[in-house]
């Protein structure tokens, strides 16, 4: 069985940029996952999405549940995302896998990135 979340309808906006909106979706996903069903996120009518929104709503699920990317994608699927937004979502998942790996090794992700990313 799967539950569908109509993301823009749930969050009351076509513009999903803030981490707060991401956290609201995170809460809804967490609630539905307790029902032991998979989830489909329907992004129909969503116009603007940010990297932080995906990190807060979906990336954090992976980190908190200590999932692999494959386990996350077994539980959470999505539809009606534009290609560039879908790539941003996949990157949020990849980045969450890296952050979880760092956390498990007791390394502070912020310090790690600070020391390993080139100057912009």
């Amino acid at each position: 069985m799967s539950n569908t979340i109509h993301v823009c309808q749930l969050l009351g906006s076509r513009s999903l940029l803030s981490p707060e909106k991401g956290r609201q979706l995170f809460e809804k996903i967490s609630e539905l996952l307790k029902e032991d069903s998979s989830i489909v996120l329907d992004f129909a009518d969503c116009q603007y999405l940010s990297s932080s929104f995906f990190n807060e709503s979906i990336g954090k699920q992976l980190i908190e549940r200590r999932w692999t990317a494959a386990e996350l994608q077994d539980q959470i699927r999505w539809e009606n995302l534009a290609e560039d937004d879908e790539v941003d979502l996949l990157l949020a998942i990849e980045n969450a896998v890296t952050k979880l790996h760092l956390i498990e090794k007791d390394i502070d992700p912020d310090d790690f990135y600070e020391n390993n990313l080139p100057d912009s």
Partner: protein
Amino acid sequence: MAKRLNIEELLRSTNTHPIERILVDTNVVINHKNPFGYVSPAFNSKVTRVVNRLQQKFPLNATLMTASEYFRYLQVGYYNIFVKTQKVKYKKYSAGQFKRLRKNDEEFARGWDLRLRSFRLTFTQLFPPFHPSASIFNENIIAQFDGAQVDFGDEVFYQIALQTGFPVILTTDRDFAAFRDDLNIILI
């Protein structure tokens, strides 16, 4: 000093504004695309909001400088993060090391392909390239450059902006304020 344009006033102004295009600095691309999830959520959200709003009214373009700086940031950042978090013997970044891993490590190649896909979409759809008609890489510019206020990349970026009718740069870098008043900046 470069003239600082107010975002709200720009968005309120009528369509007769002389801006023909806005050139996007590399730091805006990094903070907007957030390719490693490292940018603070509040700042990523702020930069994304500004980019989306300006894009509704003006063309936002990248330059060759922007794309090549961003590519380098992606390539070196991705390499460093991968080799230090996976079971790969760490060797300092080099183009040769990068190519070897891409060829021999399936996981490295898969993650890189995703970033490359994002790179292509960013510079074909979101910020398509602007090519100045005049060459900005000439002896005069190199002879006059002293590096006191800005680095060479910023100087070239400024020269490219001057090739547009109404030069505007969108940036998060306050150093651009040091340019002459023939430049307009939108500082996030």
